[in-house]
């Protein structure tokens, strides 16, 4: 089947009105050798030049672990004339020792002109019925957001790391969420970036005998890569939200200050350092240091607990890759309502 996107091509160009018919034909050709699989509708929207090809490559990789119907949209909203082009393709792989190929289908659109008017109809008319709709919005959100579009989204995926104005963007998202017909789960890839670090930090405190350390945390240090300060602040927000700390104002841009329920102060130093978005994290509590740091090999975390009379036992744990494929795959696999994320955001909202 020529449309198999091993070379990440957009596939077969089709008239918008004939997409369903052409897709059916595509599957008829591969019948017997291919299994169409889909767990979700994954719509990807971007206005960046060249995004259609780039996102096609991302989807091809993501579909290997998460079958979906992908609707990839590249928009040029500033174009003077309205124009829509469409392509169909399939991303196939042989999985689990099976002889059949497992395939996800992709419908790609290039929109020019009145994107806001075109977008909802494009997305809604090509959904695989009964499957949830995940919308990955790769740009900043427009103001106002089109309520018609958000009305049917189950999970809204975005990356707040590069937002210029976090509060304004978050308010747009929250408004859209409140106007939606059903609950939209907000999935911030900047939060997903912290998944493995949070896991590594949390495991220090799984044993009830370690819980006393929560009340004894005096300070913390979080290293972050240039441009990733918001990721580090979000991590501090997670500590604050989960340990009932209140964020206090401080004039020092390199430090955050919290107070726990007893008024006890906790200082978190943010330090810019080259490397992973969030690098070394150290929590100091009652003479013990809990350390999570990127290992030299790059894709693991080195985790250790260092006390005055304790022999440290280092441990390697999985680290989160920062590329979009890994981040989105992780986000799709973990699911959940992300209420902890909202609490973390609210704890440090003014600092983001």
């Amino acid at each position, binding site marked *: 089947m020529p449309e198999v996107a091993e070379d990440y091509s957009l596939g077969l160009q089709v008239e918008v009105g004939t997409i369903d018919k052409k897709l059916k034909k595509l599957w008829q050709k591969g019948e017997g050798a291919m299994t169409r699989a889909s767990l979700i509708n994954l719509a990807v929207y971007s206005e960046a030049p060249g995004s259609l090809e780039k996102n096609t490559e991302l989807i091809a990789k993501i579909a290997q672990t998460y079958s979906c119907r992908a609707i990839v949209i590249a928009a040029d909203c500033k174009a003077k004339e309205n124009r829509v082009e469409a392509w169909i393709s399939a991303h196939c792989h042989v999985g689990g020792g099976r002889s059949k190929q497992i395939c996800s289908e992709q419908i790609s659109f290039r929109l020019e002109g009145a994107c806001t008017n075109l977008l909802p109809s494009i997305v809604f008319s090509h959904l695989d019925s009964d499957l949830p709709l995940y919308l990955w919005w790769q740009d900043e959100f427009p103001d106002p957001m089109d309520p018609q579009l958000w009305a049917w989204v189950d999970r809204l995926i975005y990356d707040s790391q590069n937002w210029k104005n976090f509060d304004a963007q978050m308010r747009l998202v929250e408004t859209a969420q409140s106007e939606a017909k059903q609950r939209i789960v907000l999935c911030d890839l900047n939060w997903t970036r912290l998944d493995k670090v949070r896991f590594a930090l949390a495991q220090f*405190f799984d044993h009830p005998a370690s819980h006393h350390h929560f009340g004894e945390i005096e300070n913390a240090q979080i290293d972050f890569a240039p441009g990733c300060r918001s990721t580090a602040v979000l991590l501090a927000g997670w500590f604050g939200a989960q340990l009932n700390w209140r964020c206090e104002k401080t004039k020092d841009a390199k430090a955050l200050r919290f107070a726990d329920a007893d008024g006890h102060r906790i200082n978190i130093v943010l330090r810019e350092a080259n490397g992973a978005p969030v690098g070394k994290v150290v929590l100091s509590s009652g003479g013990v240091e809990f350390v999570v740091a990127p290992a030299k090999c790059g894709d693991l975390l080195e985790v250790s607990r260092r006390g005055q009379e304790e022999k440290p036992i280092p*441990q390697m744990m999985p680290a989160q890759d920062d590329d979009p494929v890994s981040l989105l795959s992780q986000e799709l696999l973990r699911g959940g309502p992300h209420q902890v994320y909202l609490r973390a955001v609210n704890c440090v909202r003014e600092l983001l």
Partner: protein
Amino acid sequence: MNKASERENVNPLREGLSTRAVPQPCSVVIFGATGDLAHRKLIPALYNLAADGELPPAVTVIGFARREKSDDEFRREMEEATRKFSRQPVRDEIWKTFGESIFYHQSDFGDEAGYKSLAAKLDKIDKERGTRGNRLFYFAVAPDQFEPILKHIKAAGLNEAREGSWARVIVEKPFGTDLASARELNRVVHTSFAEEQTYRIDHFLGKETAQNILVLRFANAIFEPLWNTRYIDHVQITAAETLGVEGRAGYYEGAGALRDMVQNHLLQLLCLIAMEAPTDLGADNIRDEKVKVVGSLRRFAPNEVANSVVRGQYAEGAINGKPVPAYRAEKNVNPNSMTDTFVALRLNIDNWRWWDVPIYMRVGKRLPKSGTEISVHFKKAPLVLFNKQSTEENVLVIRIQPDEGISLRMQAKMPGTSFRIEPVKMDFHYGTSFGKASPEAYERLLLDAMSGDATLFARRDEVEQAWTFIDVIENAWAAKKDAPELFFYPAGSWGPEEADNLLARDGRAWRRL
């Protein structure tokens, strides 16, 4: 632990993470550490858990075996085995720290001094690695070794946990060879460990699809209303393998298919299919419901066994076009062996839900293909429509291994102007829908045992009830007079013809795998 203290013990940083809390640090002592199970399953499973970050760093593995070996030698052997059998490739960086947590302890199982030195070693490890006095003993040895090991564990005081710590034991099957030996085994185990410290492992229950049976039944409202005698015609459970006895003749000669597979794996699957909804997912609530199923199995009178159970043994034949010898010609097998390599049974569960719904089970070696599955056959729709054209019943199939998944057969109209009806299949494959590989059964079960979750382990009463049922059959087969016949089937066939007749008598047929 009550709900309030559970809440107090919750780690707030764990909320919302997709992984479960790591278990408490502990020492895992594997008896029989130089054996096949440790090499193929246990150490690779522990490595995978460590690689996924599911184990605390202090978890320490102590291999206990007779052979003379240094820690480094044992580590090298385990690394080699893990590289060969692990689900995910071994990373040097991870193995380095994991390997350092592995130690070897040389001793005869019956040598008291060996246990005293083990106790001293465990104390030292507690101090150096922070394992906090928590101990998990894994018996990867034949049951006849249980008693000396348990006796010495107790003598060395290793069965009793210190304040705030725990001691648990994982026992591998077979859990006895009949009711009397199972009771004796349980008695022996309980001289050293209480029931709540005892984890009887059945790796079938660690499989993702086996666990999914509860989700399928109790998280989908459409199935449960139909899950009873009113709508279900019968149930079939098949566990087929192409393999012969391989290198296990010594064990298999004394066990046979009924003891090796039916008493544990197949009855466990039956329990999951037939049990009532538990009040919650607590280990004992689930196991209470499972025990009721085994307790409701209609016991055969000795003279009914021949009519409801077919035993077979493979003769010479071919698997995948390759000639294979008869069971009796296998190495270390008695040339006049009467051991069953195939069993087919017709069972009934005497309760309201399953009244008059026969359960057919079959298990065998050297069958044409390998696969374990459960099929629920629903009653046919009335034939008043469609010119009384005969239709096939709806069948819900739960594939346990390989190619885990669920399919539903239903009727559909063939395209055309007439009403021609053909069966079609809706098919869900785990591997197709979820690209992420499932953890191996042993990974899940080891983690559960470390976390003190006994849900997926067999309880004493489950095991004893199962033997009560199985013993009647074994005793009938062993009878000197009028013992039911042992039927022979060519390797590569679906068992003796009598197994087909078992269903044919009821107007039914085995599902084609």
